[in-house]
């Protein structure tokens, strides 16, 4: 696509983004969005109460009107009054979902107790997926995946809760190797994988988190996935300081052998000033890799600052084994009411990454070193009225040193955009157009797609679509050009509130073969 067209796409997105937002007749979001500053201005109010009206007096507690501030409240006085004398209490309270229309209503901002949690002691989600694939060259593959995620007990009521997520994968063809799938690489045709299995203790003095078992920590600079213990304090002081530590055996689901790899880490998080948040991480990893034993120490510092409502800047810096590793920064603006999101991002890898512990490894065994690079990104997403939503973005990566550019270290530019039309031209209909273009010298990947969905009735949805991908890449000094066309149709049905069923068929026409795929999936939420 010519450079001018890209520039036009960006500017058009900008104009469309700016012109978007709900129309005056929109019922989805308020007409005007209040772009409040984080620090709400305190208003000194001299009003002495509500205007006099000819309404019967109600037994509502007086309100401390002068202490009102925007972002503040009018406190209900008389907190010591027995519950039985409170309006609404005698009648068992009033449903919060039922607006009061009777001036004699006993409800005054809802004086009823919160209903006791009705959550079951055992709840979760069970999904099972059957997947059949076959080709015109008589290759066939059948696999089944069954995933259970469950929570036990309730943190509000019980001192102990538990969570488990696991999956059983079965190769119904008996460990065949017809078509690639990770399940084919295991020794057994049936494989169990445990992703999470931990117990939380809630009533430990001074500690906000006490977790034992197989768990993941996503807030660390890299995801820590281990079998062990995590402890975290409750917020301390006005800065809400939180300190935590964790450690245990590193979880290795795909290594296929018992491991004594381990990790330990610690972190501290606080809110040093209004709208700000800071986090410090330390992680020690030990891993026995193909190329020898690795020990790595990772330090991370992260800062977040809310500049205004919806406007945030954040950044993170890490050091690995005493050397600067990477730095990341991002400026985000998000207005949910206007359905507008803007984001600018920057990332720079400062040091070459070679063989490292698994959590840090840049696929060294396959792709070799990851050389330093920097990357800019911009994204804009907005709703246009009730029915349209558009998103587009650009990513640009440059390897620091041209001499490092090679097979697996490349400069690239990526441009993507998608447009969604929902409930137009008639209710229940939606159309999505998407495009994703990667350009990296002699390698380009272009993808264009269309998805059409129609709600048949409240519980049934029919979708169909197609997407086309063009891969152009160099293979042994010859430029390959491979087309991939995929067509699919999908039906989803919700027979009950807690059950989802999905049946889909996919036809994939590639330069390698013609693939057919059938998926049947059921999800039960309990």
């Amino acid at each position, binding site marked *: *696509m010519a*450079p001018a067209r890209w520039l036009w796409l960006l500017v058009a997105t900008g104009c469309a983004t*700016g012109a978007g*937002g709900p129309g*005056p007749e929109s*019922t*989805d979001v*308020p*007409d*005007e969005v209040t772009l*409040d500053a984080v620090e709400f201005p305190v*208003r000194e109010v001299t009003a*002495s109460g*509500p205007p006099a*009206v000819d309404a019967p007096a109600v037994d509502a*507690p007086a309100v401390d009107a002068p202490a009102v501030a925007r972002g503040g*409240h009018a*406190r209900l006085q008389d907190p010591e009054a027995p*519950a039985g004398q409170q309006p609404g209490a005698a009648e068992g309270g009033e449903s919060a*979902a039922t*607006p*009061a*229309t009777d*001036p004699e209503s006993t*409800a*005054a*901002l809802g*004086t009823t107790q919160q209903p006791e949690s009705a959550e079951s002691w055992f709840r979760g989600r069970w*999904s099972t997926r059957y997947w059949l694939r076959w080709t015109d060259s008589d290759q066939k593959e059948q696999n089944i995946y069954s995933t259970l*995620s469950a929570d036990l007990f309730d943190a509000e009521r019980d001192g102990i809760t538990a969570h488990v997520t696991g999956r059983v994968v079965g190769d119904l063809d008996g460990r065949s190797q017809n078509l*690639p799938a990770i399940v084919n*690489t295991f020794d057994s045709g049936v494989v169990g994988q445990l*992703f*999470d299995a931990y117990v939380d203790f809630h009533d430990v003095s001074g500690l906000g988190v006490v977790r034992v078992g197989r768990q*993941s920590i996503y807030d660390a600079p890299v995801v820590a996935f281990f079998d062990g213990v995590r402890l975290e304090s409750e917020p301390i002081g006005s800065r809400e300081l939180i300190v935590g530590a964790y450690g245990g055996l590193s979880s290795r689901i*795909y*290594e296929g052998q018992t491991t004594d790899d381990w990790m330990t880490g610690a972190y501290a998080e606080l809110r040093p000033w209004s709208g700000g948040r800071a986090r410090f991480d330390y992680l020690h990893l030990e891993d026995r890799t193909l190329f020898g034993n690795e020990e790595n120490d990772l330090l991370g510092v992260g800062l977040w600052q809310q500049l205004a*409502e919806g406007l945030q800047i954040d950044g993170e810096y890490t050091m690995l084994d005493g050397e600067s590793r990477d730095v990341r920064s991002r400026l*985000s603006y998000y207005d949910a*009411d206007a*359905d507008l999101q803007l*984001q600018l991002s920057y990332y720079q890898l400062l040091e070459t990454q070679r063989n490292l512990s*698994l*959590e840090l490894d840049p696929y060294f*065994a*396959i792709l070799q070193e990851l050389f330093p690079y920097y990357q800019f990104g911009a994204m*804009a997403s907005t709703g246009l009225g009730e029915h349209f939503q558009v998103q587009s973005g650009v990513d*640009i990566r440059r390897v620091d040193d*041209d001499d490092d550019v090679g097979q697996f270290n*490349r400069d690239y*530019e*990526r*441009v993507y955009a998608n447009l969604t039309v929902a409930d137009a031209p008639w209710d229940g209909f939606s159309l999505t157009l998407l495009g994703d273009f990667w*350009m990296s010298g002699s*390698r380009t990947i272009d993808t264009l797609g269309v998805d059409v969905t129609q709600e048949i009735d409240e519980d049934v949805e029919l979708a169909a679509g197609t997407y086309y*991908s063009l*891969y152009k890449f160099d293979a042994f*000094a010859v430029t390959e050009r491979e087309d*991939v066309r995929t067509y699919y149709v999908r039906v989803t049905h919700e027979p009950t509130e807690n059950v989802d069923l999905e049946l889909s068929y996919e036809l994939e026409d590639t330069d*390698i073969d013609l693939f057919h795929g059938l998926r049947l999936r059921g999800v039960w939420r309990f």
Partner: protein
Amino acid sequence: MALLNPTDPARRTRRLPTPKALAIGLLATVAGCAFFALSDADSGPAFNHKKHAEEGLECDMCHDTVSSEDAPGMPVLDACMQCHSGIDTEETPPEKQPSAFFDADGKLVNPRRTRLSDEVIFSHLRHVNAELDCAACHGDMTESERVDDSVAVSMADCMACHEQSSTPTRQVPNDCATCHSHLGPNGAPQTHDHNWQRRHGQVVRAHTDGLVNQCSLCHTEASCQDCHRDQQPQSHNNYFRLRGHGVHASVDRESCTACHRTDFCDRCHRESVPLSHAGSFGAPRNNHCLGCHEPLRSSSCYTCHKDAPSHRMAPPKPPDHVASMNCRLCHGVGLTLPHVDNGSDCNACHR
């Protein structure tokens, strides 16, 4: 080879605008957003609450249903004319006459700053009955010379007030159903429309502290994992598994790390034979040499063949062969080669 020559001017031809032009485009994007967002802030005729308050008018004199109904009771033209019919003259500017604020059907033309979504439940009556002053939520309108966004009340304000008004003996409900008729375990926020499945990741990464769309209100950490383990990206089709993922990874391996660690990739590569390893790829013709180059380890062959003898261990030249000789005068013409001549310098391996 030109393929791997990073400084080849030809490969520097960009299909995108220069960084400068791109920066201008991005600035135009941001400027467009800011311009339109800000320019709409003060549209329409300005209603001066301050002037009316100075005349002794109370809130409920114009908003007459606020103490008897759920709705705030926005004034109608007839109510305004009760006073203005005796006040306005022919010299009164049109923008200051009540008719400027109403359309032909008698409806307000000004955007409703405080208008809530239809699925939001809110009763002014209940709040008035709690003897909350209007200013508690809308600020001191007696000083307002123009209605602006400051009169609107955000979800954060509502929840803060509900929370701070609660006492141990009296809880002011603050759950979603208190104000939202649509939200629930099977009712997603309206922001979750419009291709949410595709774009929610960007919203999550925005990581704002705002309440709206705060994922933890409805979702647990496990929710994300459950869905992501069950649903693959659209790009992960059969071609992707066979060949496409290699092209993607060679361009941007970081995108793979969102879901996969190296043990996942190693496992599959240990077991799977690449599609290219067919025909004369191996012995005796060893066509794989066509893809080789120095240094060996930067070749994709190393992905699997980590233990293969280094090509630097090729048989050395006989003592009477010197580097300046033209090897191909004999080898490949009179003497057959055990491998394909890839055109490179024989001395690179046969030292």
